[in-house]
């Protein structure tokens, strides 16, 4: 019975939109999470005023997403905006003709994204962008170590090698398959590098590994460059981070392009635009690095003052 009501209301919405002649966009959200909401808000803000949107929440259930997607396939909107992995996968599995723009998917390639009718925005900035930001933040450090799981980040590391070579950096990438390989790998890697680059790899990054990375690098006085504001706040030197609202805005522009008949970007995963540099001045001071005023001015997030550094000079205790 609820399904019947849902389908009837869906058709009523589609029929009314058609009658009005407005652009219809269905928004599928994987879960009710703040950063998903921000992306949706950014997306809506980037759409023309005449565009009508209707949001659908999967509540973290892929099957729910597939059910919604089937309904949308029966009465397709002009475009579907999928936020999150489950929404994007549900769209990929059930939507074949309607253009789909997705975002907030960490490893789209691992799930066959994007399909032919889909385009999306990567969560990770390109290796080139990240390395450039790293180099800008730490100009004098050239030996960069990175841990990765080839299954998740093999392509990314291969691109990173090329980018590093182009930027004159030496990238020491060490592949791991399990988390328990991290301690020995890091202990072996740290003496060989002068920057540790932490990428968004689900094998490498875990709740328990984060303090280990922070401790190890701070103990070894090796700068840690990451992707997370949280880690920068807790002692990493810097990070290149994304703003969900900006991602939503970027997705809105992509949707406009689709709606305007520009199909050139179909099946292409775009890099996120305008990633922001985050820096920790206290960490830089602890590591003996001097951040230039220009870098600090350009940084979108600058952490300094009390609480911005886990480890103080001359103190043995680690204070998260």
């Amino acid at each position, binding site marked *: 019975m609820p399904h019947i009501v849902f389908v009837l209301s869906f058709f009523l919405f589609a029929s009314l939109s058609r009658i009005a002649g407005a652009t219809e966009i269905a928004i599928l959200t994987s879960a009710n*999470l703040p950063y998903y909401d*921000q992306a949706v808000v950014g997306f809506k803000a980037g759409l023309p005023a005449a565009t009508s949107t209707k949001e659908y929440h999967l509540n973290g259930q*892929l099957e729910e997403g597939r059910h919604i997607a089937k309904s949308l396939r029966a009465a397709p909107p002009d475009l579907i905006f999928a936020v999150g992995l489950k929404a994007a996968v549900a769209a990929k599995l059930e939507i074949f003709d309607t253009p789909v723009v997705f975002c907030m998917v960490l490893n789209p390639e691992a799930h066959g994204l994007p399909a032919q009718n889909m385009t999306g925005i990567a969560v990770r900035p390109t290796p080139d962008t990240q390395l450039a930001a790293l180099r800008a933040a730490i100009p004098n450090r050239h030996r960069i170590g990175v841990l990765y799981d080839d299954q998740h980040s093999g392509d990314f590391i291969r691109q990173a090698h090329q980018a590093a070579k182009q930027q004159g950096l030496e990238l020491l990438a060490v592949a791991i398959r399990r988390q*328990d390989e991290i301690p020995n790998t890091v202990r072996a890697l740290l003496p060989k590098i002068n920057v540790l680059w932490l990428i968004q790899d689900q094998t490498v990054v875990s709740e328990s590994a984060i303090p280990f990375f922070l401790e190890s690098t701070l103990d070894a006085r090796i700068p840690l460059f990451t992707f997370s504001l949280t880690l920068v706040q807790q002692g990493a030197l810097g990070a290149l981070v994304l703003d969900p609202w900006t991602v939503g805005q970027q997705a809105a522009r992509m949707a406009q392009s689709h709606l305007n008949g520009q199909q050139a970007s179909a099946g292409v995963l775009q890099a996120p635009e305008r990633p922001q540099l985050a820096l920790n001045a206290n960490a830089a001071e602890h590591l003996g690095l001097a951040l230039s005023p220009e870098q600090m001015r350009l940084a979108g997030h600058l952490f300094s003052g009390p609480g911005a550094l886990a480890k103080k000079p001359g103190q043995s205790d*680690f204070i998260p």
Partner: protein
Amino acid sequence: MATDTEMVEPALSSSPFSVTLRTKLVLSMAVILMAACLLLAWVFIRQQARSAAESLVQSGTLLAQHLAGRGRFSIAVGDTHRLTQLIQETLSVNSVAYVAVVSSDGHLLAGLGKGKWQQQFSFQPMGQRPFAVTTLVQPRRLNTETGEPLVSGIWLANHAPVLRSTIEFTLGELFTLMGGSELPLFYDLLVQVPHRSHTAVWDTALQLTLDERLDTPENSTTLTQMTPALVEVGFSTSTLQHLLRQLLWQAVLITLGTLIGGLGLTILLARHIASPLQRLTAAANKLADGEAVPTVAIHTHDEIGTLAQVFSAMALKLQAREHELRELAHTLEHRVEARTQELAAANTKLRELDQRKSIFVSTASHELRTPLTAMKVHLANLQDGIDGAITEEQRRSLLRVEANLSRLRILIDDLLDLSQIEMGQATIELESIPLETVITKVVDDLHPFAHERRARIVTSLPSDLPSVSADPDKLRQILLNLLHNAVKFSPLDAIVDLTAMKISTDEVLVSVRDVGPGIAPEYVDKIFQPFYRAPTVHKTTKGAGLGLAIAKSLIESHHGRLWVETEPNRGSCFSFTLRSSTPSRLASAETPAPIPSHHPIA
């Protein structure tokens, strides 16, 4: 005067439980100070021990939690190398005795110990080996929700840990600490390796990295599963014990100092209170002994000072009163002495006068007797007609002269007898006399007079009336005087009763009862005085008032008593006693005894 004080002082000193005020004050203050100091010291030490223990537990908790936080990844991935490094770092803290990382099921993952605790970790195969302390403290009791540590006291006895019921030191242990011994007491802190998330909800990239799973719900943060584990850190209480030892000795010294100081002050205070009281007591004793009391020099502005002032004022008043009393007594003594001397002189003078009177009466009686005898001879010659015949009228006149001569002769005889008694010249010759014989003779002698007064003398004499020891003449005179008075003062046709009876083994009572006018009570004491005649005696009744005085003197010379029982208008009963005759009494009576002289008639 001194008896009151003497009675008080022995009463105080004789009691076995009597203590001085100073002793009471000192003892009371000592008890109070001791109790207060011990109580305060105990509370202070307990509070300090608890505070120090809490501080140790707090810092230990931070250390254990820090270790748990730092080592949680190593625990998760089984990195014993890193864990051992972290444990060694933790062990470098002086107070840490052992550090153990154990799984939630109690198996030792890594651990190291110092000193005696090394044995607990000497063999450490990876995997299935429990840690003895963890087994003791029962990790199930750990509250995993609040994250608070489980704190336990561990006693390391003979290299084997024993769980204590409390982490606090017992009284006996505190005394052991004071003796310098060190207790093998350790605090065991058990904390859980935290599952704290490092991810902020606004950190999109990190959230996605950690949470994005196609097969799990995304709307709840899913952390990478970590191996549940516990970090157990043992802390030596050596420093705490050292601190407590110092505190204990400080408390002891402070207690002793306070006690000594307090007792010193109490002694001073007690002396300050007791000394004036002692001086007051000494002054009071002096005052009680009648000594001169100087002003008690106590100048305190308190109750004792007021008491001293009041006492001094009272002493001055008492001394002034005593002085006045002494002067008054002295004056009285002088006056009494003077009056006594005056009285003695007057008495001597009276005695001389009385003696001279008696001599005069005796001399006069003797001198009067001689012409009276001559007059009587001549009167008899006239009556007999030797000097010529006389008429009847002359005869009657001569009879009246003879009667008056007889009365005069009786009066002179009485005066002579009385004067002899008063001058001690009369003698009593006692002999055993049958009383009824004397009575019969006296009654016979009085028969004419009784006949004249138409009186009847009735005698009642028992048959067993004993003989009495008396001078026959004097006894006769006694009875004669009493019976004569009875007949004389009784109306006509009266009956005078004379009775005699034995009232004891050696005493006989003789009574003469008349039915005369009696004697008024106010005159009873005076009727035995010479020449005294009661006012109620009719003027026509003749007599000089010597009979009773002579009778009383004679009876007393016989060691008897004479008294009268009288009732106005009903008559009188004169009674006297005499001693019955016994051989010893008679023997002593062979020597004539002088009759004691009468007191002078005042």
